[in-house]
């Protein structure tokens, strides 16, 4: 989702977007963003497995994935704040992604509490719905964000 390229004349081509980010000014946040996203997407898979099997093992996977996702997201937020404090520039992070991440994180936090209920209703229907909603939000945000970067070449070296 993040396309960070070191500006190097040998690599610059017309087809590929190249970030204007400089190596020394590169923020940490974009490198950490994929990890919570992977956790939240995994939780949807394990929720679906629980829904189909009634096996509590999948339910436990889901709540750990969501919890770890939230912790990793928290670390990413801290990294982002440090980036901001150090004056680093987020050339590849479009506004749809930021809005999407905030929404996905808020829904995931609620989802962690829903998943902490006991037995079936920890997942079906509310938990499963929220897990799916998070993935949809992330997909839409990711697509809209990359469209900004690729199609409109925002934050990209001309």
């Amino acid at each position, binding site marked *: 989702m993040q396309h960070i390229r070191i500006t190097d004349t040998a690599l610059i081509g017309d087809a590929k977007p190249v970030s204007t980010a400089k190596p020394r000014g590169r923020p940490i*946040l974009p490198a950490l963003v994929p990890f919570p996203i992977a956790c939240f997407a995994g939780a949807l898979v394990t929720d679906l497995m629980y829904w189909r099997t*009634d*096996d*509590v*093992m999948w*339910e*436990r996977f889901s*709540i*750990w994935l969501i*919890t770890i996702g939230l912790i990793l997201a928290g670390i*990413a*937020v801290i990294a*982002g*704040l440090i*980036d*901001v404090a150090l*004056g*680093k*520039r*987020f*050339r590849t*992070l*479009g*506004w749809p992604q*930021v809005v999407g*991440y*905030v929404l996905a*994180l*808020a829904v995931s*936090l*609620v989802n*962690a*509490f*829903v998943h*902490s*209920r*006991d*037995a*079936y*209703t*920890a997942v*079906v229907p509310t938990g499963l719905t929220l897990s799916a909603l998070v993935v949809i939000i992330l997909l839409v945000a990711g697509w809209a964000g990359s469209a*900004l970067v690729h199609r*409109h070449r*925002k*934050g990209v070296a001309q």
Partner: protein
Amino acid sequence: MMRASEFIRSPKRPRPAVLLAAVSLLALTGCDDNGGDPTRQIGANPPLPALQQYLMPPIRIAKAVGWGKDETPTVPQGLQVHALATGLEHPRSLYVLPNGDVLVVESNGPKAPIFRPKDIITGWVQWFAGAKAPSANRITLLRDTNGDGIPEMRTVFLDHLNSPFGVALVGNDLYVANTDAIVRYPYQEGQTSITAPGTKLTDLPGGPIDHHWTKSLLASPDGSKLYVGVGSNSNITENGIGAEYERAAIWEVDRASGAHRIFASGTRNPTGLAWEPETHKLWAIVNERDEIGPDLVPDYLTSVKDGGFYGWPYSYFGQHLDPRVQPQRPDLVAKAIVPDYALSSHVAPLGVAIYNGTELPANFRGGAFVGEHGSWDRTPLNGYKVVFVPFSHGKPSDPAQDVVTGFLDANNHARGRPVGLAIDRSGGLLIADDVGNTVWRVSSARPGSAPKPAS
């Protein structure tokens, strides 16, 4: 799109901070965790509100503070209470031997496994409530030789047990219900310590989860059978239905062979068993499920029918379905028995004694004392006292009365929490207090009410 590009071109705007603020502003409280008047849910046919499911289930625990010097529980006029023994280690249940010696089972559950992040939180909550003491795994004997109501002798009767709870003596066989097995020890009257190795009568459902670890024990009047209260392995099957095999049930164990059958099932956590003397029926106290509201589900006292099913996990108080259980079992729900007598929600009855003595006033005869450990998930707090349920013709006849109170101080901190009960040889009511680490004795406030000396 203009605004969007502006946004992108002003990278110093603290966007991640927006994200953090949004998350922290998210309101997660606001659920109504205040229960109704808890006394309305005492007796047959309690009113049951609609169930609620929470984002954050209400937690309201009484911080454990212990008893101050000379502080005791409160009893009504005409009764008196004093400490029979103090400085115990998490005393959970009591048993009175024929010679008057009192056995105090000092015990706690095995270490709870962590399956979910929630289990970590639950551990903190229990620690705060003084329920995380390590198990002493020991039975202490108290003997009052001169009859002044104060035991002069205190010995370690049995040691190196495994989260013991129930005790039953049949002839010279003393049975201890550890969390994972019933073990038999040879006992001679007057013995103050058992060093002989025990013999296992039967395994009981124990680890690795062992969510409800206490195994209550009661011998049949003829001594041929032992009845064992085996609690469920979860609140409401969150550890899987496979973990509940032969749990949430009252077992009937053949004393000669060790073979068992399920006498009754669907009893989530049957922590106390007693024989009703008039009808000779088995009665049990049962702890019902949590996390569906401050007024759900009332814990109960009930007669136990052979082969009866009492609802857990599929339903409660008859046919009230619990949606947290999947797949459901309509066949079992259809035959679920409504318990006889609700004790109110989340009071956590952990001890029962049907009064057959003469020491206490006559109105207590034939009725049931119930030790209510107290709630942790409702406001206002409920339980934290010993109540008396009057019986008539072998059935509860009137609303429960508070008999021993004052376990909570004015700030709703727990000075103690009542657990197991027993009637001593002189008819005094004994109460194990696992936060105050004390055994209390309630007797009539009149001269000459001291217990008879143990022989």
